[in-house]
């Protein structure tokens, strides 16, 4: 009996017993739930030979694996991004002596234990689902990657032990050499986390750009498969993306808390935390487009078919949606900086309003170019007037030369927004201030012009010249601006006089909403590009090596895919909210208890992340 027939039988049976009372229905449903896996097993049980695929009714194996994999990846990004964020804050506190950074680092490390467990849980579920639904593929991947599976297990043990030492030893290792040891543990935590990320990246990238050795030892085959053409581009892209995700989620958390707290002290704290989160997010965001461009270049070079599928074929519309999401992210981040200038630094609005307007207009113009598709959505009538799907004048904005140019300009503008925020409320006193500012202005203007000239010139040279030389030059120019203006500004501000003190806790509520919006945009972006990367393999499990012969060997339409992306984004937000809630439950109890030295009520389980305080209380 096939799975569909069996489900139909169950439904008929349920209809037949409708009048027999709800308890009977409930009992049968419970039994049915436990028997659900047998449907999948039964579906393949009658076929000859080893089972290649299993399925489950309604949701389908592919969709279930998609959702669980995406959630696991988002959680992993969070779990790997937050330690970078926390460790950087701890180092700042350690070297600079600002205790509030240490407190911030601890506040976020507290999240790690519960977040780590949730990530591992989803990883385990994903593994079971993959083994159950795709036995043939998993058998093949195990055969190729067996040595790295063992390494992955070892890395997990090391990461777990380090995390426990890092978190539970926080208070005990606060001073002297112990603090140095603690900072080293934080480094180790990130070091192992990096490898925990890049090892499974090899499995995923192997599926897209496989390198298969027919001979050699297990180790040689695994190593060749690991070092495939898209492995390092993905590693770098994901590493930066994790920092961005960690930063923006911390910002969103601060934004939500800022909107709900009552006391001035809390408002100041969460306002500052929101600023730090946004700063870290923006810091990563500046480098992310470069990493993405490198990844796409490698994919294109690896296989023209895959490159065109992504950038010119049926997935190309995703990149317009991507432009919209990144655009909102850039606008949201800049908006937050500008709100900081007008609200945290009283009296600065009049001075910077014109500059903010110019930056906003420039950002919007860049975004308009980035979002203009090469092939436009047009009715038959409109297409007839244009002579096709390309607009004769605006069509030139739809290709990479234009996109690269405006993305570089947007990075420059965002960087200058930050510099403006940094300088606001301060007056230069250095003798060379005038010269320094003139140099910075000249660097910025010349660099912007150079980026634009290279962008226009890019239309008139062979593609390889544009990709290998012009685009990289644009990136180098932007990097040069950042590396020149940052130290010059820091030097100038070292001797600057503070004319207006920064007032924390004075941001309007819309600043908190902007932080939440940024986090949602990043999550949506990750789900979108996860779909793009995975779908670029089209009907292959392992591109060009192992074909997908399941009933799901087709790419879902963009509309249906967007539903899953939206669900994953929503569910991930719920999971993160749950993790934050669980992790801060102990704090709320402590606050409610006043001094925090009261006796713990009996029977309350120790909450994940609450141990150091509880230990002190005890």
């Amino acid at each position, binding site marked *: 009996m096939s799975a569909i027939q069996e489900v139909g039988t169950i439904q008929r049976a349920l209809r037949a017993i409708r009048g027999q009372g709800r308890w009977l229905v409930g009992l049968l449903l419970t039994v049915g739930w436990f028997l659900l896996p047998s449907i999948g097993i039964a579906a393949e049980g009658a076929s000859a030979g080893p089972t290649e695929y299993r399925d489950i009714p309604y949701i389908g194996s592919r969709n279930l694996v998609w959702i669980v994999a995406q959630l696991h990846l988002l959680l992993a990004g969070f779990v790997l991004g937050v330690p970078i964020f926390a460790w950087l804050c701890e180092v700042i506190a350690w070297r600079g002596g600002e205790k509030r950074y240490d407190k911030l680092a601890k506040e976020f490390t507290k999240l790690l234990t519960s977040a780590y467990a949730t990530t591992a849980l989803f990883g385990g579920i994903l593994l079971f689902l993959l083994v159950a639904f795709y036995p043939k593929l998993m058998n093949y991947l195990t055969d190729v990657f067996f040595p790295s599976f063992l390494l992955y297990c070892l890395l997990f043990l090391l990461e777990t032990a380090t995390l426990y030492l890092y978190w539970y030893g926080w208070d005990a290792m606060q001073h002297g050499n112990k603090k140095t040891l603690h900072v080293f543990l934080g480094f180790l935590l990130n070091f192992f986390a990096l490898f925990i990320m890049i090892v499974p990246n090899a499995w995923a990238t192997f599926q897209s750009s496989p390198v298969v050795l027919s001979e050699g030892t297990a180790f040689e085959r695994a190593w060749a498969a690991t070092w495939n053409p898209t492995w390092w581009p993905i590693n770098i892209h994901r590493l930066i993306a994790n920092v961005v995700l960690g930063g923006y989620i911390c910002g969103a958390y601060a934004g939500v808390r800022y909107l709900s707290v009552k006391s001035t002290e809390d408002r100041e704290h969460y306002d500052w935390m929101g600023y730090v989160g946004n700063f870290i997010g923006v810091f990563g965001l500046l480098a992310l487009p470069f990493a993405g461009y490198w990844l796409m270049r490698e994919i294109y*070079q690896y296989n*023209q*078919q*895959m490159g*065109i*599928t992504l950038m*010119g*074929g*049926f997935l*190309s*519309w995703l990149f317009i949606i991507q432009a919209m999401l990144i655009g909102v992210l850039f606008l949201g981040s800049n*908006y937050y900086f500008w*709100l900081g200038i*007008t*609200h945290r630094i009283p009296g600065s*609005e009049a001075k910077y*309003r014109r500059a*903010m*307007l110019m930056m*906003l*207009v420039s950002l*919007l113009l860049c*975004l*308009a170019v980035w*979002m*203009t598709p*090469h*092939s*436009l*959505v*047009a*009715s*038959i*009538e*409109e*297409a*007839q*007037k*244009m*002579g*096709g*799907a*390309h*607009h*004769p*004048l*605006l*069509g*030139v904005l*739809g*290709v990479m030369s234009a996109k690269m140019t405006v993305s570089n300009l947007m990075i420059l503008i965002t960087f200058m927004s930050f510099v403006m925020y940094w300088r606001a409320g301060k007056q230069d006193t250095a003798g060379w201030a005038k010269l320094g500012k003139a140099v910075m202005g000249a660097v910025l203007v010349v660099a912007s012009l150079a980026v634009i000239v290279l962008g226009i010139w890019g*239309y*008139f*040279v*062979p*593609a*390889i010249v544009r990709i290998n030389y012009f685009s990289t030059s644009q990136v180098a120019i932007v990097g040069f601006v950042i590396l020149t203006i940052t130290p010059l500004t820091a030097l100038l501000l070292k001797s600057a006089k503070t004319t207006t003190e920064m007032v924390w806790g004075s941001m*309007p509520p*819309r600043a908190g909403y902007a932080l939440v919006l940024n986090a949602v945009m990043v999550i949506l972006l990750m789900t979108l590009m996860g779909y793009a990367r995975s779908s670029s393999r*089209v009907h292959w499990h392992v591109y060009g090596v192992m074909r997908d012969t399941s009933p799901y060997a087709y790419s879902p339409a963009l509309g249906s895919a967007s539903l899953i992306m939206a669900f994953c984004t929503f569910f991930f937000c719920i999971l993160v909210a749950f993790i934050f809630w669980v992790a801060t439950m102990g704090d709320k109890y402590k606050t409610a208890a006043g001094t925090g030295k009261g006796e713990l009520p009996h029977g309350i389980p120790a909450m994940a992340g609450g141990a150091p305080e509880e230990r002190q209380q005890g």
Partner: protein
Amino acid sequence: MGALGKPIILMVGMYAFLKFVLPNIPGSAPLPSSLIFLYLLLTASGIVIFETLSGESKDAFWGPIQRFLTGENIGGLQALRYGVLILFPLLVGWQTYGSTAVSDLPPTESRTIHPAPPGEYTGLSNPVPKTPENIMQGKGFYAAYCSPCHGGNFDGKGPAARGYIPSPANFADPTTIAMLQESYLFWRIKKGGVGLPIEGAPWKSAMPRWEVELPDEWIWKIIMGEYDGAHQSPRTWE
């Protein structure tokens, strides 16, 4: 309405520019409504961002809207308020109906212009040596087989081009064949419009399936002639 005046003028001005000015620039064409909507959305976002940067500007911008919508101290504008409150939902309803109602018009196009080529074509490189003779020969074949549609100047404006929607590709445009590898062109010329994969649907290409008339070597020569004549270079990785 003082503080609202500028944003309203800006929105109207932007719409007028996109709808009436930009299409009349030489070499341009009317913009599809999707693009106009996109640019207006960006303009509106910019206005909201700028006007809410400070508490004062936010109050100056949002205050009149709030007062108008709540009817607080608006005097003689009450009738206009009721008009807006009644007409706006109707407008939204009309738009929704218009976009979902069954129509005799064909659906909006969002076809894939560059569907991915089949795997067997992706690794190919031009086997014909790039000599002046071969390029000239390619241009000759192009003149005979391709130029009626794609034009003697490689600009997509051949004598037969006016009969086709979409127009034949303009090879002189740096956003067409310059973005593609030679193997892609080989596949498209050889298999024509009927050889497009399902992701390229609706197949709106009148390109003949030249493999039934031309040997492969001629097609490779045509490709060389096209690039040379259009002053473009194929995408390569070296």
